């Protein structure tokens, strides 16, 4: 189950608008209108992003009087603190292959010189 939840967080933050929404409300809770005002995207699109963020636990909606406020929940993000990690891991693998290749190339050069 935890793996599923983590995957959802990855999906949530894969989208730049959703990342921007999280950073916008990280310091203060805002209602939907106030959030939408910060983006050049339609209100329904923002609603959809907020729905996804709510579903993966990065936002909780709190009713305050007539208004519904979005509050950021940053704990799930700890799981993906380094969102570059898998991309980095791919390049780490390639460079390790390259290290091996270069070692062989250096050996060959030496034997050729002899």
């Amino acid at each position, binding site marked *: 189950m935890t*793996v599923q939840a983590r*995957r959802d967080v*990855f999906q949530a933050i*894969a989208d*730049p608008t959703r*990342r921007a929404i999280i950073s916008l409300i990280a310091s203060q809770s805002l209602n939907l209108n106030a959030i939408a005002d910060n983006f050049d995207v339609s209100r329904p699109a923002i609603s959809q992003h907020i729905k996804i963020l709510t579903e993966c636990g990065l936002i909780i909606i709190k009713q305050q009087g007539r208004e519904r406020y979005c509050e950021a929940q940053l704990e799930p993000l700890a799981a993906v603190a380094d*969102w*570059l*990690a*898998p*991309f*980095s*891991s*791919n*390049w*780490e*693998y*390639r*460079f390790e*292959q*390259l*290290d*091996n*290749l*270069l*070692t062989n*190339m*250096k050996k060959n*050069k030496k034997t050729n010189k002899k």
Partner: protein
Amino acid sequence: MTQSKQLKVIAEPGKQELFVIRELDAPRELVFEAFINPTLLVQWLGPRNMKMKIDYFEGKSGGAYRYVHTDQNGNEYGFRGVIHEVLPPERAIQTFEFEGLLGKGYVSLDAAIFEALPGNRTRVTLHSVFRSVLDRDGKVAAGMERGISEGFSRLDELLAKK
């Protein structure tokens, strides 16, 4: 004698660029050769669990390239571009596009910079500039999804053992 081979990836929020930086324990000429000679390139550029095949690769200014990564299920991922400049042993600049995306034009301009370091070592800086922040984040996220599925397959293996 422990010298840094730590990989550095820089992708600042809201920017269209991406840096991948790594030091290598070999002289610059050799490292440059491994980047520009297709018979050498094919030996290291393929991602984990993929087979790399070079369709064509003309490692010279004005040249073009195409290569394909094939995964264990036979899915093919094609990449292509043109080579803008090859300046041994300092710099190579090319365009890069993944053919599998819907629509065209998600191309980046990739510069590989090779710096000679003391002790016959080399620092490689791969600098990619994308047409939009979304393109860049998409590229990083693509790695992310692969990373996740790799994580899942490792988890599957682990669970299968129990």
